[in-house]
């Protein structure tokens, strides 16, 4: 029985992650073909051992070589990492004060505030991103409002710029930043701040010497939770970013669905995964360390 419970997560991992990944990896070693499925070779088990050998013989790393030859790809990777990193910092700058405010709010308000943070998850992600088109467009709500109060004379061209992408990512991933930071701040014993003041800190130094270090695990968790999905983000750059925002998720989408070049797309996906393994492993380590420190 106990064994069953330890097996379930592994089975889950194998069926939903390793097997699909193996398939994608296999496709990335194939060649583009005008057929269904749109790649060659395909394995014909009926052909026996010889068929498997032939099949393996035809797989190669051509597509990976291709990725290094066309500057588009590595630029897209770098650009994605950059956009994800900047968005993470922005999300932190917006999220930390919100989490701090929540943690210091009267006890009775906190569940409500928490609800407000989680509330957007109850509507479709796609709809929320579309809503931002309505807000950021030239004729959109934001421009109308700014024109109305007279801050600007001509509408701002916000949509289809990197700014719109940043806004979209910060908006979408903000709860992932707020919740772990809030959890860390909520656990913080208020008497620690009093002790700091008692020992000679002003409110501000107490914040920097006690609150910030003690909320660090939450900050790190929040940053990873924003950074990792933001690197591979597709919908936000596609809908809000226009043509001049280069992100690897968008390239991937185009390779798959516009070019129908599954092998190249699979290679792009595999490399993306390899890039993300680094922060994911770091994240796991940090979580582990945080758990250990808690004992």
């Amino acid at each position, binding site marked *: 029985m106990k064994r069953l419970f330890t097996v379930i997560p592994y089975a889950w991992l194998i069926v939903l992650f390793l097997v699909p990944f193996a398939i994608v990896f296999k496709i990335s070693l194939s060649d583009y073909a005008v057929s269904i499925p749109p790649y060659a070779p395909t394995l014909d088990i009926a052909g026996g051992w010889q068929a498997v050998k032939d099949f393996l013989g035809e797989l190669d790393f051509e597509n990976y070589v291709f990725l290094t030859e066309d500057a588009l790809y590595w630029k897209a990777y770098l650009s994605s990492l950059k956009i994800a990193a900047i968005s993470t910092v922005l999300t932190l700058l917006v999220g930390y004060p919100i989490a701090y405010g929540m943690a210091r709010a009267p006890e009775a308000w906190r569940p409500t505030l928490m609800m407000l943070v989680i509330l957007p998850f109850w509507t479709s992600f796609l709809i929320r991103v579309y809503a931002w088109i309505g807000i950021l467009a030239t004729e959109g709500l934001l421009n109308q409002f700014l024109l109305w109060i007279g801050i600007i004379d001509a509408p701002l061209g916000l949509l289809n710029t990197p700014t719109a992408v940043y806004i979209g990512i910060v908006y979408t991933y903000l709860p992932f930043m707020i919740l772990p930071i809030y959890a860390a701040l909520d656990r913080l014993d208020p008497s620690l701040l009093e002790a700091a003041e*008692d020992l*000679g800190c002003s409110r501000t130094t107490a914040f920097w010497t006690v609150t910030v*270090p*003690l909320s660090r695990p939450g900050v790190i968790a929040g940053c990873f939770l924003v950074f990792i999905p933001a690197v591979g983000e597709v919908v936000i750059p596609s809908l809000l970013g226009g043509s001049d925002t280069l992100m690897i998720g968008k390239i991937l989408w185009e390779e798959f669905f516009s070019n129908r070049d599954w092998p190249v797309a699979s290679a792009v996906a595999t490399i993306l995964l390899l890039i993300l393994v680094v922060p994911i492993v770091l994240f796991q380590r940090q979580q582990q360390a945080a758990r250990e420190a808690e004992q």
Partner: protein
Amino acid sequence: MVNSTVFAPWEDPGQTPLIRIENVTKRFGDFTAIDDVSIDIYTREFFALLGPSGCGKTTLMRMLAGFETPSEGRITIDGKDMAGVPPNKRAVNMMFQSYALFPHLTVWDNIAFGLRRDRMDKDRVAARVEEMLKLTQLQKFAKRKPHQISGGQRQRVALARSLAKAPKLLLLDEPLGALDKKLREETQFELMEIQEKTGTTFVIVTHDQEEAMTVASRVAVMNHGKLVQVDTPERIYEAPKSVYVADFIGDVNLIEGLVASVGELAELTWAEGKAPLIGQSGASLKAGDEAVFAIRPEKIAISREEPEARNRVRGKIVDIGYLGNLSVYHVQLPDGSYMKCEVGNRSRVSRRDYTWEDEVWLSWTDTAGLVLPS
């Protein structure tokens, strides 16, 4: 308490107190947590605040530390009015009930925390921290984080941290509450030793009256935000001014009656046909007042034959509590009330002189009991 006979600055009108709490009232909304309290605390005192839960001990401490402001009244420390002075600007340090050690810092850094805030140079910080580590015998644990040491060690770190800045006044809010009895007693003596060595003034909050009696130069008994009595431990125990204090500190037998006469000693009539009880007159009383006779169980002698003493009552043993070093006899008097009497166990239990259902006499001297206003 070696010096208690010599050290009594509160009796010397020439002394100026370090802390003056003058008519301080603290209200939370319409709840009065501290009600018109005035206390003077002198340099080098070990001042204990004692009282039931919720009586306002912590609130009073927090006002001294600067975490709460009095609603009315004035607190001066070393002659300086503390109104509007934030906690970080007071020469007062507090050892928190929960210790409040910084979990992200090592023991060493916890102790150094306050010193660094003073922009003290590195060598002096290090020297002072080492000194504190030595004082509290924590050298071995300097590199550990708070979660890697025991409860008693943590408590010593908290003490070292609050002592490091050599405050004029150290506030200890139930510092030993979490320790077992043996460790608590050791630490009490350590505290007293530290106080001797450093000359700091201590104010200590405690639930434990024995602790207050052990460490304090003076004890303040509080109830419902009011001061009931401030006195030396001996006087609090031997000469309580009210039934409340007598009952709160230690065990006491209370017998209600009417004051028959007051002179050198007071007489209290308490039951028809019984000789009046005689004791010291605790406070201003006059004949005819309702009063309570208070007598400590250990001051009562037990015997089979009728004793000589003027204060004597007859009763039947209904219960015997064996506490190791002493036995407590619960004796029922003819009128149905009970009295407790403690007798030291000089011989083995098997040779005990009295047993259940025995008819015995309880007696005590004229000066052993107190007649207090009810």
